[in-house]
């Protein structure tokens, strides 16, 4: 039971293939099995077309597997409706994309608060305070009212990290989080992710090409032709 409580994510023989009208189905994932414990940090690496992003989308319930099972905090995602999946994403998962995907019409603070609108269209009490604290923590306390266009790429990505954390998720999924950053900003963001994983005890799965970033994760999985080729501690 204690072991089950420690498991955040469990994938069992997950397959994914894409259908096409005039061609044979294209398999992308071929039976991925993975167990992720609370507070773990995992890097998934692999060449282009190996299925990294597809896997991450499935982990984040943005896509569904063709076969296999995914459990998040013991809850089977395959059985959930679109509305329930949205709720799972909102409460239990934080996303960080390669491109920050901040809303250009909103300020830094507002962007962070966007996920809090899911419940009833209004940020709950305390959300603003938490957003400010988190932004302070990532060094953006002085940029609360700035728009994304007024920030650097690294700052934008840090805002995206805070947005991912605002609802205190149990899992953070990052898709090439440093892919669009220069070396210095990439280093800084990697520091931030490691620090959050350590301090907040939040589980972190990062899909990346960057060996530097992967090296800073607790576990690395190599994805090749739709399957995990090897694990490295």
């Amino acid at each position, binding site marked *: 039971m204690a072991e089950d409580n420690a498991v955040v994510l469990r994938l069992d023989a997950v397959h994914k293939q894409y259908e096409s009208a*005039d061609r044979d189905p294209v398999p992308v994932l071929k039976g991925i099995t993975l167990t992720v414990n609370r507070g773990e940090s995992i890097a998934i690496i692999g060449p282009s077309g190996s299925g990294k992003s597809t896997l991450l989308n499935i982990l984040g319930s943005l896509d569904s597997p063709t076969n296999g099972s995914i459990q998040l905090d013991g809850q089977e995602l395959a059985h959930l409706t679109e*509305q329930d999946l949205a709720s799972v*994403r*909102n409460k239990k998962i934080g996303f960080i994309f390669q491109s920050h995907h901040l809303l250009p019409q909103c300020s830094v603070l507002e962007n962070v608060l*966007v996920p809090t609108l*899911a419940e009833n269209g209004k940020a709950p009490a305390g959300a603003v305070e938490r957003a400010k604290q988190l932004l302070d923590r990532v060094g953006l306390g002085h940029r609360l009212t700035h728009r994304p266009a007024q920030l650097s790429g690294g700052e934008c990505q840090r805002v995206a990290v805070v*947005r991912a954390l605002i609802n205190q998720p149990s899992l953070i999924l990052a898709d090439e989080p440093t892919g669009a950053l220069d070396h210095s900003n990439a280093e800084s963001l990697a520091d931030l992710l490691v620090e959050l994983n350590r301090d907040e005890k939040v589980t972190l799965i990062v899909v990346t090409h960057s060996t530097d970033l992967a090296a800073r994760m607790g576990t690395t999985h190599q994805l090749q032709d739709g399957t995990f080729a090897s694990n490295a501690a």
Partner: protein
Amino acid sequence: MTSWSLVLNSFRYYARSHIGTLLGVAVGAMVLVGALLVGESVRGSLRGMAEARLGKVELALPSNDRLFRAELAAQLQAYLGADTAALLQLPGVAKRPSGESRANNVVVMGVDDAFWKLALEQPKFTEIPEDSIVINERLAKQLNVEVGNSINLRVHNPSQLSRDAPMAPIEDSTASLAQMEVFAIVSDAQFGRFSLQASQVPPYNTFVPLSQLQDAIEKPGMANLMLAGKATKPSDDPLGQAQAALARHWQLADAQAQLLQLPGDKGIELRSPRVFIDPPLAKAALTVDTNASEVLTYFVNKIQIGERSTPYSMASALADFEPGTVWLNQWTADDLQAKVGDDVELSYYSVGTMRQLEERTGQFKVGGIIAMNDPRSDITLMPDFPGMTDSENCADWDTGFPMDLDAIRDKDEDYWDTYKGTPKAYISLATGQEIWSNRFGSLTAVRYAQNGSEAQDALGKQLLANITPTDAGLTFQPARSQAAASVNNAMDFGQLFMSFSFFLIAAAVMLISLLFQFTMEKRTRETGTLLAVGIPARRVRRMLLLEGGLIAIVGCIVGAVAGTFFAETLLNALSTNWKDAVASATLTYHSSSSAVGTGMSMGFFVALATIWWSLRKLKKQTARELLAGETQEQGNPKNTAKRSTIIGVVLILAALGSIGAVLADGGQMSPNSFYGAGAMLLLSGLALASARLKRLANAGALGQAESLSLRALGKRNAARRSRRSMATIGMLACGSFMIASIGVFQKDAETGADQPTSGTGGFELMGEASIAIVHDMNNPTNREDFYSIDEEALKDVSFVPFRLRDGDQANCLNLNLAQEPRLLGMRPETLAGRFSFIDTMDGLEPGDNPWSILESAREALKLPADVVPAIADQSVMMWALSGGDMMKSKKLGDTIDYTDEHGNPFKIQFVGQIADSIMQGNLIIPESDFIKRFPSESGYRVFLIDNPGERTDEVSDELNVALADHGFEWVSTTRRLGDLNAVQNTYLQTFQVLGGLGLLIGSLGLGVVVLRNVQERKSELALLRAVGFEKSAIKRFVLSEYLGLLVGGLLIGTMAAALAVLPTMLSPTADVPYSLLGATLGGVLLLAGVWTWIATNLSLRGNLLEGIQKD
């Protein structure tokens, strides 16, 4: 932070991107607000006209030829506490003494100061001086007169004895008022527009002193129209209140009756200035005293025994005599040397239709001789025949029919001098009523065996207690509520212009949809982010819809402001180029917050619905796809291409098949079948274009690789977003089809006008008289005797006469809804083979002459007594009686309510429908029913003339001169039909112009599609640039592929339209507006080309290679 603040942030941030969508909304709202404001302005203008024509009048009592005492109005005024006025209103003709100008259909009104008090605005004068006349502005313009000029008037002289009745004189059928000096010209508000009939065209009104007009027609103290304003005594039923007041104050004179003390205490006699006592009055007279004696005295042409005869005598039918016998007075018996038992023949005239005199004879045996001093030899038995009673000599009699004056002997003159109209022969009442009764009555007097003024008063009261004013044709009408109904149910120009603006609205919807979609497509990643962070999809769509709603609100506000200018522009057009659409009515702009509010609301909902529709595809896209920036079109292009091809081919075959079938069948090239085939060709073209685009989009790389060229690549690019491309092709094709083919519905009055089955009925002239003609105009003798018409000029010309009950014009020339339409009474045989019947009611057998159903319907359909069958034009039934509301259109079998001359309600049932014709505006009923319902409407006022010699001008000139006193307005039937068609043709023209405008705006859509598509393809074009293509070559390449869409859309539309309008184009008298069509389609081609060029240049400006460098 709330969802709403996020919506507001987005609205502000993307404000510039929303400008296009906002303008689309503004165009839609502008059109809707503008159309509704036009509707409100037309309604407001009509309301203003109704206010002006009725002033403060609430109720009216028109009695036409049944005159009542003018002082009755003053008595009712005191009782009701309402302003009242008595008028004498007569049709007439006005002309300048010099003859330089004239006006027919003039309404001559004798008025006093009470009349002007009821006007909206009282003129400066209160009384019109003797020999002076007040006219309205329209008449002043027609006659070109000003204050101080003189006018001659000829007016209809209402005869109490119908002009159709036997012994009705003809000499005094009109009266004249010469050298009347124009005292004032009154404005509309000063009752210049006064009329009880709803029409946007003011009548030619003239006002003269009441007493002078009464004197001119020798009816002192009488009136035939009473007006009443608002009563000070409140009542839930003002009409009932007025009718009750009338019943309380009226007298026998108002019921066209009088009680006379006969000389020598021979009793009291009831008689009528109408000569024949109205049946309701006769019934009441006999109810009062069942012992009363009935008298029917008639004029006989001849009393003959063998070779001996006595000419022109009175004969009475009384109850005292045996049927089959005739008693002669001594003088006649001596004249004829008659003795009891001799056979006697009485000859008399019976008046048939068109006042055709038919001499009939009755055979009798002499039953006895009455001495000249016998009380039965009674001079008072002769009623007051106008034109006879006061004559000095027999030779001066005006009996209304030709008399053989040579037959009158000296002894006859002596008899007249001594005994006047003392009857010479007496027959039984039953026989007399059998042979002399007519629609005006069957008694000329009722006698009571009472004497003295007290008995006379008592009888009068008893009579009035047994008859109602309505029985005597005196019924108040709710003039104001009728006017309100005719305005409120008038043709809704708001709806009309909304339908005319269909393409403008469609263009706006397309722009809103395209532009909003494009804005949303730019924000797919943002939408994906919202979904990814767990905002429920429904809430995301709602937020985007709210943002769209904000755009719609702002767009509607802009549109409302523009809409007021649009409305003023349309009204200006309706006063100039499109004036035929409103029958040249003067329209003024009426602002209306409700119209603006409704237009904005409609615009808002149209915009919001379009935005909602544009957002619906978000439902189908996942967060992952959106985050990846994907905006893929749905569906399997292979399958849909196949399906579209099949549909296209089937439609082509159906189009060709339908035409082939008609032609193979030897049938006429019916415009409808060609229009249907054209529409099928249009759909087929669109289906095939869609299939082609989908096939191009789906082209396999291997199959295409060998034939790859820049041109082929361009074609495939056009197919890249096939839905966008089809939206523009569809808009251009449908728009050009509708605009080009609508010309097929243009009506040309000249086409086939000489055919009896055409809208002219094959007649050349149509005429309407102010003053009725009672004689048969087809009889050359009548024409010569009564009108001195040059027979040579009218050789071979034939007339079809109609009786006319004036009412509201029920046609497209009247913007108001006709409350009581004009009725025409006719005999079916006169129109055999004329006009085209669309349908007749089930259960009727039209046979060779469908007009005969008017007479057979009563029996075939077992119509109740209170139902009169009628035939009307299709447009009258469909539009004019429904105020343009299809839902209220009249169908065969439907009825409308009407009131007869005696105030009795009856129903008019539609039993036949004819194709649009010159008869529009009228309901045609059988003459027999007409004279039964309206016995006082004597003679004929509407004529159709068949003139095989094509001497139309010569005939109309001759008739104008000969019938000048009747105020005839002759118009060629093609002009009349042309005037009626002009309304519909102008509607079509309006549709074409507004549709063309919509198409021009719709062509903007093509520019938008180009802009968006090229934006999406920037990296691809950059690649072309990178591999060495010149920028100008890329521009040409882009431009050519989109111009292909433009030309394709227009070609599909115009080719289909060409097929649809083929019969019209081939018609020798076709009136297809090629220049307007050419200008519209050319304008669309040019403008859309310009949009495409601008969009291409805008998209390709700057350094294209930056696109590829960024990638």
